[in-house]
């Protein structure tokens, strides 16, 4: 057997050699399409390079060709785990441009929807962190309760995931009684589930060993990297758009902003869990506030702005006035102010901003989305440097990266 070729390593190279590993874009361990080319020394990461854009869909270009109300479906598809927040953010942007004031009742209804979306978003993120640390059963268990949230959306707007919920100025219809019953059911059942979820993971030895100290980031670096949302708060900065630039009457609510200290996966997990509790309390408060509205006030579900609010289809078919407004809005006969606005909302994973420039035309002259994922994913190379590969994977899921939002 003399023709067997032996691999000959250069002298003294054994310890120094690094391996290049291509993770993604369709790697079983990554949830979504991210490509990481990691340079590894044994199992430690020496350096890595990220490639994104695998589902770039040109949202910003599409938005330049669509009237305002047709842009809502695009925002759904940004962070699809919490589409209603994006929808509301977009409506708020339009309302700011059009100088529309929404009634309090609408604001509170929006708050309910947004907080439900936040719960759904954090629930997915945290249970996926569980999956990556080896606890698949937790994911299977809580998925059922996300269905409850989806059923509420479905009752309100007719769809589950890409909700396209609401209109400029309010909602397309009042919440039905079934929606309220479903909400009550959710509020009754969910705290128990969340408690159970925490019991399963928070003090779980394996989970703690896997997550504590994995992918930490300091507050200064996080700020410099443009972190926002739960990831920034886990690093110890209490920046929350809901508190700092309140929108949709968030100033009326009493809630705390949970912060962590080390910014590692465990802190991110705890912050998200705490936020779910806060969201539950906000929803309860919103429900109480809604009960104050009596009589005709309790039927208000949109602002009185016929020139921008698409009338209900039933009215369009039966009432002259509604038909005229419908026609005017669809054909672009209503005046659009020129101007530029920046409006941000606290999305599922950070400050989701909309920078809208209108030149008075029907569609935006330019619409830019500030997408939190895209901005903080740059830090991934830094925070996983020197970590084990398996820690890098868990960091990836605990940052809650959503490919749709990242690539827009």
């Amino acid at each position, binding site marked *: 057997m003399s023709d067997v070729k032996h691999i000959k390593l250069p002298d003294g190279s054994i310890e120094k050699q690094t391996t290049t590993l291509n993770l993604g*874009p*369709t*790697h*079983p361990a990554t949830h*979504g*399409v991210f490509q990481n080319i990691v340079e590894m020394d044994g199992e430690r990461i020496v350096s890595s390079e990220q490639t994104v*854009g*695998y*589902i*770039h*869909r*040109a949202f910003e*270009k*599409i938005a330049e060709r669509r009237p305002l109300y047709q842009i809502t*479906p*695009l925002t*759904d*598809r940004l962070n*699809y*785990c919490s589409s209603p927040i994006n929808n509301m953010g977009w409506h708020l942007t339009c309302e700011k441009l059009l100088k529309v004031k929404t009634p309090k009742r609408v604001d509170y209804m929006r708050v309910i929807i947004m907080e439900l979306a936040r719960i759904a978003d954090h629930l*997915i993120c945290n249970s996926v962190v569980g999956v990556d640390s080896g606890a698949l059963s937790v*994911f*299977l*268990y809580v*998925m*059922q309760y*996300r*269905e409850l949230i*989806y059923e509420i959306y479905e009752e309100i707007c007719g769809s*589950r*995931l*890409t909700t396209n919920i609401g209109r400029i100025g309010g909602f397309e219809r009042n919440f039905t009684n079934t929606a309220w019953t479903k909400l009550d059911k959710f509020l009754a059942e969910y705290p*128990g589930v969340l408690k159970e979820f925490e019991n399963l993971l928070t003090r779980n030895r394996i989970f703690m060993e896997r997550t504590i100290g994995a992918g930490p980031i300091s507050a200064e670096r996080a700020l410099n990297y443009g972190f926002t949302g739960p990831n920034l708060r886990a690093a110890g900065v209490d920046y929350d758009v809901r508190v700092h630039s309140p929108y949709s009457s968030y100033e009326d609510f009493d809630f705390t902003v949970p912060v962590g200290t080390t910014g590692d996966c465990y802190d991110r997990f705890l912050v998200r869990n705490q936020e779910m509790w806060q969201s539950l309390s906000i929803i309860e408060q919103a429900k109480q506030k809604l009960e104050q509205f009596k009589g005709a006030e309790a039927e208000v579900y949109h602002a009185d702005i016929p020139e921008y609010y698409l009338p209900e289809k039933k009215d369009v078919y039966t009432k002259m006035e509604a038909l005229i407004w419908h026609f005017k809005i669809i054909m672009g006969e209503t005046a659009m102010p020129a101007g530029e606005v920046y409006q941000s909302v606290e999305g599922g994973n950070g400050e989701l901003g909309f920078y809208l420039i209108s030149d008075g035309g029907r569609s935006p002259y330019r619409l830019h989305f500030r997408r939190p994922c895209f901005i903080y994913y740059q830090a991934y190379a830094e925070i996983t440097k020197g970590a084990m590969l398996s820690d890098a994977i868990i960091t990836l899921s605990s940052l809650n990266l959503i*490919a*749709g939002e990242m*690539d827009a």
Partner: protein
Amino acid sequence: MSRPVRFNIHPKQPDIHDNIALAEMPEGVQGEGYFATGLERALTLARKNSLWPLPFATSCCGIEFMATMGSHYDLSRFGSERLGFTPRQCDLLMVMGTIAKKMAPVLRQVYLQMAEPRWVMAVGACASSGGIFDTYSVLQGIDQVIPVDVYVPGCPPRPEAILDGFMRIQELVHNESLRRRNSEHYKALLGSYGIQ
């Protein structure tokens, strides 16, 4: 501290006739201690009820797939308990979500890595036709790069629709002749995609 156990307080009696669906027996000859049937029938029956899907989930539709495989809708009822994440082991490629032009070569690569027989399901408007994204960066339907067996419409399709699509794949698998993959027709189809 002991906690009250809230679940499974009334365990179901293990009654397999109520709880487990049995696959229909294929036609054949049977007597005491033996059963004989065509190889094709036996094989397709096995294939049909143990499809290994490869979820190629890129965006929003992938989240609906999560729901489909999750506990509420439960894809494993159809014999796909095992989601494989490696193309080498799987026989059903489920493409869910937008495929950008940057992603198209990757998708094709994954398809090529799968062994025959392989089936492809395009879930959602984006995978089927580009969906709402008629833009410079999005592939206008995955059938431009790989052949597709079943399209599931919807943006995103409900989990029920995904399950329906899955059952149609099962039907195809069940009725497929063992020789199909060697036929001229099939070769011509693959040839039109430049696949040997």
